[in-house]
C-alpha cells in the first residue's frame, strides 16, 4: 500500500480519537451510547450504532452502508480492560502488509465480548458463526437485537465509553466476494477478506440527556384543505343565483 492510502486510512481513525477526547466525563449507569462507524482498510463503508444498557441487558442497533454487497459480515462489540478503547490506526499494522487484520486491532479495541448475531448465542463463542450474521443486501445492513445479556463488567464498559463496535468483511481485490490467497488470522479456512475489519467506532455517551422516540407531533392540519368552506359555498350559491337573475334581466331588454 502506498503512502497516500495509508494517510487516508489514518485520517478517519484519528478523527475518532478526537471525538473521544471531546466526550463527557465517564459514568456507569443505565442509558444509551452511540458510535459513528468509520472505514478501516479502505472499505469505503460507514455506519452508526446505538446500544442501550439496562442492568446487564443490552439492545443493539446497527446500520451500515457501502459494505461488500450480498456477503455476510461478522459484527462484534469489543472490549479489553487493558485495550486503548479506540479504533486501530495503520500504526497497529504490525506485519506492515498495509492491511489491518482483526488480531492487529486487538491492542486498540480488545477481544470480542458480544457477537452481534441475528439468532442464537451472542457470546464470544459465536465470533465466526458466519451463517448467523447479517448479509449486506446491496451493501447495507440494518440490525437490531434486544435482550442480549452481558457481564456487569461489559455493561459498565459500554456505559463508560470503553467498548468498540467493529464490522468485518472487505474486498481488497474488488471481485465482489471474499477471496484471495491471504488467509484469515482467525480461521485459516477463510480468506483474510472475510474477517478483516471494514468499519469501526467507539461507543460513547449520548449528548442527549434523553432520546426522543421518533419525531414530533407539531401540527393539527388547520392550515391545510379548505378552512372557510361554508362561507365560500354560501357565497358561491348567492353568486350563481345573482348571476342568473342578471342574465334574465338582460334577456328582457334584448327582446325589445
Amino acid at each position: 500500500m502506498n503512502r497516500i492510502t495509508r494517510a487516508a486510512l489514518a485520517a478517519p481513525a484519528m478523527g475518532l480519537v478526537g471525538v473521544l477526547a471531546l466526550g463527557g466525563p465517564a459514568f456507569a449507569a443505565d442509558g444509551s451510547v452511540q458510535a459513528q462507524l468509520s472505514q478501516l482498510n479502505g472499505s469505503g463503508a460507514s455506519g452508526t450504532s446505538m446500544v442501550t444498557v439496562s442492568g446487564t441487558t443490552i439492545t443493539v442497533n446497527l446500520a451500515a452502508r457501502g459494505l461488500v454487497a450480498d456477503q455476510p459480515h461478522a459484527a462484534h462489540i469489543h472490549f479489553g480492560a487493558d485495550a486503548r478503547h479506540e479504533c486501530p490506526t495503520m500504526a497497529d499494522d504490525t506485519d506492515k502488509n498495509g492491511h489491518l487484520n482483526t488480531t492487529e486491532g486487538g491492542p486498540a479495541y480488545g477481544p470480542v465480548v458480544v457477537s452481534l448475531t441475528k439468532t442464537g448465542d451472542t457470546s464470544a463463542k459465536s465470533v465466526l458463526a458466519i451463517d448467523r450474521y447479517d448479509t449486506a443486501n446491496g451493501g447495507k445492513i440494518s440490525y437490531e437485537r434486544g435482550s442480549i445479556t452481558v457481564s456487569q463488567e461489559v455493561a459498565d464498559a459500554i456505559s463508560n465509553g470503553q467498548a468498540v463496535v467493529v464490522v468485518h468483511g472487505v474486498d481488497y481485490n474488488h471481485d465482489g466476494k471474499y477471496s484471495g490467497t491471504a488467509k484469515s488470522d482467525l480461521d485459516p479456512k477463510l480468506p483474510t477478506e472475510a474477517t478483516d475489519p471494514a468499519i469501526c467506532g467507539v461507543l460513547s455517551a449520548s449528548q442527549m440527556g434523553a432520546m426522543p422516540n421518533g419525531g414530533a407531533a407539531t401540527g393539527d392540519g388547520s392550515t391545510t384543505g379548505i378552512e372557510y368552506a361554508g362561507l365560500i359555498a354560501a357565497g358561491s350559491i348567492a353568486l350563481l343565483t345573482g348571476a342568473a337573475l342578471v342574465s334574465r334581466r338582460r334577456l328582457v331588454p334584448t327582446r325589445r
Partner: protein
Amino acid sequence: MLLLVGGGTAVGIGLLKQQPAPPAPRPAGSLTSHASSAAPSPSGPATPVGDKPIRPVELQIPSIGVRSRLTVVGLNPDGTLAVPKPGKDYDKAAWFNGSPTPGQIGPAVIEGHVDGKVNGPSVFYRLGSLKPGRRVDVRRADGSQVHFVVYAVRLYPKNAFPTQTVYGNTTRPELRLITCGGPYDKKRQGGGYPDNVVVFAYRT
C-alpha cells in the same frame, strides 16, 4: 344584484382568508420524504468549543419572520417528544430539556407547531422554506446570544425518523429545528402530517 355583490364578497373573503398549506422544504426535487433519508453532510468551519448549560429564552429566524419566546418541553410517558399544549404557549417554539442547551456541544433541539386550531399558522409555519446559509439566533437567560447558520433542511417520514441523524452526537454546538410537514391526511393515526421538517444548523 345584491346577491351578486354579497355572494362575490363572501367568496372573496373566503378565498382571501384561505391559508395556503405550509411550505415544503426546497429544492423539492431532491427532498421528497423518501429520497432524503441520507444524513446531511455538515459543512462550514468547526467551532468545537462548547459553553456551559445556559437556558435558552428566545429564538429568532429573521429570514422567515420568526421571533418567539421559548417554552420548555420534555418527553411524553411513551418516550415521544412532548409538544406545546393548547393554550398560551401553543404558538411558542419549545426547547427540549433532554437535549443540550444551544451553545453546548451536541444537537440542541427546538420544536414548534406548524399550525393550530385557534390561530391557524403557528410559529414554524414557514420552517420548510428556510434555506441553507440563513441565520438562526438564540438568546439565553444570561442575555447572551448564540448565532447559528443553517446547513440543511430535510423532510423525514415520521414512521422512519432517522433518530441517529437528528439526535446523534456532534463535534460542535449544533441546532435542530423540528416541525410537521408533508401532505396532510386527517385520517392518519397519530396526527395528520406524515413527515417532520428538520432544520440542521451549526454555531458560527
